């Protein structure tokens, strides 16, 4: 402020300096008095002017009135019929205008750039997300189909004759019944073998009967032999008359010998038969005796397998049920995500609507530039009036183009 004052009344200090010099060169009281009066006048006039200006209140505040204040003054509810031009701001304020204009333009450009970038990134990101979620959705569908078909396989009814493949349960049941069939077979074979053994015992008993008969035959042949000997002795005693009888006796003796040999051979045969039959009985005994413990173990294992398979089946069915639930949930969640992506529309709209305010700011920059070049306030005032009009219009309708402030589903309006 002091600098401005000195610039305006530069002659006051110059006069006082000159007076001082004269005084120093010509130290005479009359001259001194004259110079004093002159200096007082030189300083008094500016001070008086200063005092006068302070009274009116235009100079004396710290900041010179800026162009925005002028605008604000213009925007206060005044009757637009009498636009009074406010007093011109200090000349130094005008020099700020170009700087202000360039700053405004630069920052507006920065904001516009950022907005465009945001829009671009948003669009790409959301497109990517859309694609990804739709892919996920399709995958869950496919998975669900697989699970359903698998469940169908697991719980297949046994009376469906068209089914080409066997469930584990059917297989185990078939195995179990096959095992039972073989066990029954073994028991039956054993029964028949034991029966055979009994019949063999009967045969052996009958052969013992034959042996007894053979023993009788032996006795008879022995007796016959003895008789023949006796007959031969008697025949010899009878002399000539007994010669015929002696021949008969000899013949009988021969016959009894044959008989003895014959029954001896018979006995040998039957002994051999007995041996063979004993061997047969041994073989039959082997067939009859099957250790059933192996079958027992096998059947026990198969039965345990059946129980395990039932458990596994139940567990699988339950797991499949749970998987189905999980996938249903995933489905719902994906749906929610896809719906949430609609935020892109809203954000795009919001970003789009920054263009208007940015446009206004650009106009401001231009107006500032024009004002700075032409040294005329009119463009600024026009801008202020237009802004005021627009604000009034803005207050009557919804200011924000999008009413949404949160992302709850159901409030979404699609543009």
């Amino acid at each position, binding site marked *: 402020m002091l600098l401005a004052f000195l610039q305006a009344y530069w002659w006051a200090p110059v006069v006082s300096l000159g007076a001082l010099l004269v005084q120093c060169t010509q130290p005479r009281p009359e001259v001194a008095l004259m110079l004093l009066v002159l200096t007082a006048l030189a300083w008094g006039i500016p001070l008086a002017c200063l005092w006068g200006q302070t009274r009116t209140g235009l100079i004396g505040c710290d900041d010179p009135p800026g162009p925005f204040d002028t605008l604000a003054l213009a925007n206060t509810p005044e009757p637009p019929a009498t636009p009074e031009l406010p007093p011109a701001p200090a000349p130094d304020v005008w020099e700020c205008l170009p700087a202000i204009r360039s700053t405004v333009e630069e920052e507006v450009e920065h904001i516009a750039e950022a907005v465009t970038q945001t829009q671009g990134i948003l669009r790409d990101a959301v497109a990517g997300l859309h694609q990804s979620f739709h892919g996920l959705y399709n995958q869950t569908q496919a998975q669900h189909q697989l699970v359903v078909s698998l469940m169908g396989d697991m719980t297949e009814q046994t009376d469906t004759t068209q089914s080409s493949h066997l469930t584990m349960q059917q297989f185990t049941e078939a195995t179990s019944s096959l095992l*039972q069939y073989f*066990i*029954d077979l*073994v*028991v039956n*074979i*054993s*029964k*028949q*073998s*034991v*029966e055979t*053994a*009994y019949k063999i*015992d009967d045969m052996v008993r009958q052969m013992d009967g034959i042996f007894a008969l053979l023993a009788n035959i032996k006795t008879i042949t022995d007796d016959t032999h003895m008789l023949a000997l006796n007959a031969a002795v008697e025949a010899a005693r009878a002399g000539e008359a007994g010669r015929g009888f002696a021949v008969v006796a000899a013949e009988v003796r021969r016959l009894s010998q044959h008989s003895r040999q014959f029954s001896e051979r018979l006995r040998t045969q039957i002994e051999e038969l007995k041996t063979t039959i004993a061997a047969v009985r041994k073989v039959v*005994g082997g067939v*009859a*005796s*099957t*250790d*059933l*413990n192996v*079958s*027992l173990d096998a*059947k*026990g294992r198969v039965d345990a397998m059946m129980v395990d398979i039932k458990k596994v089946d139940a567990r699988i069915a339950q797991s499949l049920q749970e998987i189905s639930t999980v996938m249903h949930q995933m489905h719902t969640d994906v749906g929610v995500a896809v719906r949430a992506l609609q935020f892109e529309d809203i954000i795009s709209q919001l970003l789009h609507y920054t263009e208007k305010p940015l446009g206004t700011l650009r106009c401001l920059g231009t107006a500032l530039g024009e004002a700075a070049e032409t040294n005329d306030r009119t463009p600024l005032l026009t801008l202020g009036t237009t802004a005021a009009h627009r604000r009034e219009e803005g207050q009557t309708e919804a200011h924000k183009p999008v009413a949404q402030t949160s992302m709850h589903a159901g409030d979404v309006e699609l543009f």
Partner: protein
Amino acid sequence: MVLVTRTSSDGKVVTIDISGRFDFSMHQEFRGVYEQAPGSATQYIINLRQTEYMDSSALGMLLLLREHAGGDRAHIKIMHCQHEVKKILTIANFQHLFCLD
């Protein structure tokens, strides 16, 4: 393997106690019991408390006893089976043909 036979006083119930191994070596004795039993015998009791082992020939012998005693009309009880023996009788489905204890 020992086989002991007891007959009730009225001759109607024949009890056969089997100890040791009930297998093929016993087949003649076993048959002897029921073939020599009095004609009035209507019920048979096979006591397997002391029987440690049974194989398929024993099952065959029991089936033949059942046939001898009248098949479906026969009353044959198999009693006091040990655990392993019972398992064998069960897998052969003897519970449908005999009274198992």
